């Protein structure tokens, strides 16, 4: 067993890995590489277990956005709410908005759900902690693919056909995923210690949805339009919607800037997550 290669050496001390950044980044890359196989396995496990026990199977990925769409279409058609003019037929507009929002929200929830569900494993087995997050991303990607496919069918029904811009849609979905994962992972360490985060998050997300042009379009003026423009999620949703429906994205620079910042944030929270896991495992089960 110990003939050829020298054995890898692992050292545990009380020092913070931040104190030696070079080694920390090397370890991060190593673990990222090591979690490749495992995260795929975990994702396959969770997806197949999830759908094996349901009758409607993959359709469940659509229920929430479809229900949301139905509510908003009803509110607007019945005249209870005046949403304002949209370039697209309103149902199409809402359907796309809620689908994209659902992708973002799943990405936000995935890290904390994943870590909570694997509590037992985390407390007893040492495996790359990244794999849980990556497995969560795979699952969101899988669900997103279903959503986008259904969306295309719905668009065709309403007579909206995407053009070659559609090729950029994966980029839009990726940007929602990156932003969502960064936010979700940011909340995970504290959320695991204090359950307040888990309780407050759905409420917060609802507010956030109304501050994003999901169910109604951007307005030219008013206090709300200012807020909407400040919201970094606005360019993500708007740009992706434009790519899906053959419109021209107006916020491309803003979109790229947000993506850049989100990637940066993701790197930062990844480091925090790594630092936090031993502490959380200690407090979870001591």
């Amino acid at each position, binding site marked *: *067993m110990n003939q050829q290669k020298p054995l890898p050496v692992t050292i545990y001390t*009380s020092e*913070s890995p931040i104190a030696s950044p070079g080694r920390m980044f090397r370890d991060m890359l190593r673990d990222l590489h090591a979690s490749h196989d495992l995260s795929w396995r975990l994702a396959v496990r*969770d997806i*197949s277990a999830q759908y094996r026990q349901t009758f409607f199977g993959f359709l469940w990925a659509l229920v929430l956005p479809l229900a949301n769409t139905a509510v908003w279409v009803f509110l607007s058609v019945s005249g209870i709410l005046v949403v304002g003019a949209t370039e697209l037929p309103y149902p199409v507009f809402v359907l796309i908005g809620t689908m994209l929002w659902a992708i973002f929200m799943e990405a936000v929830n995935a890290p904390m759900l994943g870590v909570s569900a*694997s509590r037992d494993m985390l407390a007893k087995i040492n*495996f790359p902690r990244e794999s849980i997050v990556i497995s969560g991303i795979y699952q969101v990607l899988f669900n997103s693919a279903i959503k986008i496919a259904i969306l295309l069918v719905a668009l065709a029904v309403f007579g909206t056909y995407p053009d070659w811009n559609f090729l950029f849609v994966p980029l839009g979905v990726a940007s929602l995923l990156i932003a969502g994962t960064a936010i979700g992972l940011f909340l995970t360490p504290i959320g695991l210690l204090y359950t307040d985060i888990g309780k407050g998050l759905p409420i917060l997300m609802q507010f956030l949805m109304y501050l994003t042009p999901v169910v109604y379009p951007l307005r030219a003026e008013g206090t709300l339009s200012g807020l909407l423009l400040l919201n970094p999620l606005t360019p993500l949703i708007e740009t992706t919607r434009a790519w899906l429906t053959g419109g021209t994205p107006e916020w491309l620079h803003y979109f790229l800037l947000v993506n850049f910042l989100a990637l940066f944030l993701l790197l930062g929270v990844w480091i925090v997550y790594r630092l936090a896991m*031993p502490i959380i495992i*200690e407090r979870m089960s*001591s």
Partner: protein
Amino acid sequence: MNDTLLKVEGVSKRFCRSLKQSLRYGTQDLYNEIVGRNHGGNGQLRADEFWALKDVNFELKRGECLGLIGRNGAGKTTLLRLLNGLIKPDSGRIEIRGRVGALIALGAGFNPILTGRENIYVNAAVLGLSHRDIVRKLDDIIDFAEIGNFIDTPVQSYSSGMQVRLGFSVASALEPDVLLLDEVLAVGDAGFKSKCFNRIGKLLEQCAVVFVTHSMHQLYRIADSVMVLDKGHRIGTFSPHDAIKHYDSLCAGEASASAVFLDNSIADATMTIPESVHAGKEISAQISIVPRRPVVIGQVIFNLTDMRTGTLVAEYRRTELEISIDTNFAHAIPIALGPIFLRGGQYSVSCAVYDRKGKINLAHFANFATLEIENPVPTEAVCGF
């Protein structure tokens, strides 16, 4: 070649008693970690904290097995978790060469909906086997677990025995350099257990092993040396034989810890027996009782278990004793076991005390003492003269 695989130097770990505080300290630790400060702070305890482990040192080479014993809460499992890298030490240093494997949490990550085969892939990946290794060992794992054609059935329809067998089979398929064992050595029925022991035996030769247990005969069987822990402190590292003595003396601090009074009539009782006896000689135990109301002891049964094998080797039953105890404290009443004809060695003694009719179990003393039986001078030596 230096084959020291595990080096532990001055490792300490603090834990917190109160949950609220613990969460606050967790947040504090996280902040310190992010700004790059040391995890253990200044090495002092904060309010409500205690040392779960304090200044533990040891080294282990390939092929060596260190046993860890201590009473509940002595820090054994904490040490294993530190070695496994699950939690960070507050001070000190742990150096591990090679791959760490742990026979802890068998079947972690099993999903009940998925089949045994699917779960093998997941579980093995979690334990650190690469896809290629899993494929290579799959048949071996399935064979060892004796699951048969249940392998493509969802795990939720397995019996609990089948689940642990599968879990053991996967976990023991690893080829670690450092192996951590927490009580689990063998699972399943008698036949499967002996298979487990064989496999563990093989692992023991190839790895440096740290082994936590409460079972003294397993300690005898496996460990080369034994570290005794008490309230996080290392009492010392001994041979298994001496370690058990130290452990017993720790437990003796709370005399009635292993005594259970099943009937309400006894408030407290202690049982003692001489530490050693020559084979073939008479021996008596002594019982002291604080009764709540007058009781009559009718029967006393002693069991002797061989510490090496863990098997029950002798039962000494005294009936029709008629020892009446009124409400006063009864001190050191002798109860003769009779002459003892056993091989020389260490035996663990348990005792059950019954009432006159032998129906009501008044008190039970589980493994309350260790009895050493000394062989007389071998007869050949005398006769051969």
